[in-house]
């Protein structure tokens, strides 16, 4: 896919005003790759698996050449067999390893729902805490150039519904690295859904390993008139929208959820208390998606603060169409 035609390469918004001479700016891909490199270096139980992790594309670059450094014992290609390999990763995790299982697309996770939902998410609870499953599953949402119905699904709405899973959607290069390191260190099954558009960004990433707490979101832009809640690529869109609104004198607060499960309720409610107006933005389908849960939560616990209905920006309820004129109508942002 000619990415240059779909999404230009850019610096991510300078959310936190970190840019400065001494700040290292690297591509999003490189941030993930560095996290993996450091995790592999620091902990011999970490390994990386998935179709193509050792190939010349190296999972959009996120795993590029790691097999050369750590050997194909620790960074290895797998058969497609997504359900079997997920179960194998679960077993390896139970056996004391820390697998990081890469998929090109969340669409392929649908083959592995049995092992993800029936097994990984339940193993700790079902046995009264006797067993842990420290497993990371990573997949990257596709978009554009006719990716079409089976290669562009943003399935966070499904995973957000499953108790026992943690669900991460990073929005910045800094977070892509820090949340990956936290996910690998976590003793529970964690799903990281990336967005292909984030891979066109560059941003500030410290060189040393660091972790970002799972379950905590953050304010990307403070504001007092309206709260825009988003995750992953939608944070960038929300930020740009906030800048637009500022021109009209509307002071929008932008919340980056970072983790969708467990959700940072406090952060959301604190903001809603201040602004009383909310828009929730997501890359997934609207009906029954993450925007539904966030809206319902706000109504349940922050009804008194609300000055207006919670609005949702999400994909229309159809499979992703292939054609570019239809894609244009399908995607928000």
């Amino acid at each position: 896919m000619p990415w240059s035609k779909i999404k230009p390469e850019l610096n991510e918004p300078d959310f936190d005003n970190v840019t400065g001479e001494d700040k290292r700016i690297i591509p999003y891909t490189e941030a993930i790759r560095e996290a993996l490199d450091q995790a592999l270096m620091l902990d011999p139980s970490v390994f990386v698996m998935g179709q193509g992790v050792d190939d010349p594309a190296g999972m959009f670059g996120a795993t590029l050449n790691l097999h050369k450094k750590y050997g194909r014992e620790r960074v290895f290609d797998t058969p497609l067999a997504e359900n079997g390999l997920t179960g194998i990763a679960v077993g390896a995790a139970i056996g004391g390893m820390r697998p990081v299982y890469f998929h090109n697309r969340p669409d392929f996770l649908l083959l592995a729902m049995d092992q993800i939902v029936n097994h990984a998410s339940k193993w700790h609870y079902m046995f009264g805490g006797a067993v842990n499953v420290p497993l990371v599953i990573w997949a990257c949402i596709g978009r554009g150039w006719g990716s079409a119905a089976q290669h562009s699904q943003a399935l966070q709405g499904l995973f957000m519904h499953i108790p026992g899973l943690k669900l991460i959607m990073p929005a910045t290069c800094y977070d892509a690295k820090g949340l990956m390191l936290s996910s690998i260190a976590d003793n529970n099954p964690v799903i990281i859904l990336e967005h292909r558009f984030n891979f066109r960004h560059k941003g500030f990433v410290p060189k040393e390993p660091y972790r970002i707490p799972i379950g905590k979101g953050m304010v990307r832009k403070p504001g007092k008139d309206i709260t825009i809640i988003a995750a992953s690529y939608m944070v960038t869109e929300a930020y740009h929208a906030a800048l637009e609104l500022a021109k009209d004198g509307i002071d929008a607060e932008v919340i980056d959820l970072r983790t969708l499960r467990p959700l940072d309720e406090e952060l959301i409610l604190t903001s809603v208390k201040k602004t009383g107006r909310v828009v929730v933005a997501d890359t997934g389908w609207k009906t029954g998606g993450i925007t539904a849960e966030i809206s319902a939560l706000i109504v349940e616990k922050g009804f008194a603060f609300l000055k207006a209905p919670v609005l949702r920006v999400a994909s229309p309820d159809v499979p992703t169409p292939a054609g570019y004129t239809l894609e244009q109508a399908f995607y928000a942002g």
Partner: protein
Amino acid sequence: MKLPRDTLLRLYYDMLRIRKVQLRIESLYHLDEMKTPIHLCIGQEAIAVGVCANLNKEDYISSNHRGHGHYLAKGGDLKGLIAELYCRETGCSRGHGGSMHLVDTSVGHIGSSSIVGGGIPIGTGLALAIDMKKQDRVSVVFFGDGAADEGVLYESVNFAILKKLPVIYIYENNQYSVCSRVSARQADEVIFHATSPEHMFTKTVDGNAILEVYEAAREAVLRARNGDGPSFIECKTYRVRGHAGAGSDAGLGYRPAEEISFWESKCPITTFREKLLQKGLISQNDIQDMERNIDIEIDEAFRFAQESPLPKGEDILQYLYE
């Protein structure tokens, strides 16, 4: 193969113990105090015992819904099992799992899945961990003919061969998945029988003949420990009781009465006892001692379970995450 007498007696004892635990569960089930679906392995004890007799405590097993035998044969705590059936806080899964979800990590039992076939890749993954950690362990996967319908078996075996993993697939072919005969679900013998021997040691044995199972498992375990890769052992057997719950299901009529009685006559425990008695390796006294010891142990386990506290509803959110 000539086994020492104490090994033979041990095999007998372990089968008998599993059987007697099953029978006790069965006899008390109608009281509705064990509020959990049960899947008895009566008639299949030789498989769990014959395989696990070759394993060390550190070796892993992956089990399924019909897992009492696997759990006990691997050395799982009896009190923990019975307390789990009584849904107690002291159960092996703290009352969160019930009969289908047993665990005892202290003896390498990492939890059983009630999703048919679900444990197959997990057991394979344990072998991957063993391999990566260069541990002197093997991983055994128990699964039934229903599980052999599932594509995940193909995926797992392929991976195990590819990576030469120390995993042993124990195919407990009791010929039925619930009321559905294997011939209604599978084209022929399982396809792995045709795999070439360099790739995988494959064997079919009489699953009711403990020594046949023991011997095949021994070879498989040796190979796994030697780094020679996976094995696939089909144990032909039969579930003489109903699929779930207590008692016979002969009244349902989905299988011929003669078939059931034929297999009852092939009971792995009585046939083995006859053999031991014939060869003078065991006496009626030995047998009575065993029975008595087992009964005492079972009495205790049930008392323990019945007297144990129930988990509290308010703690329901515990154990969601580590």
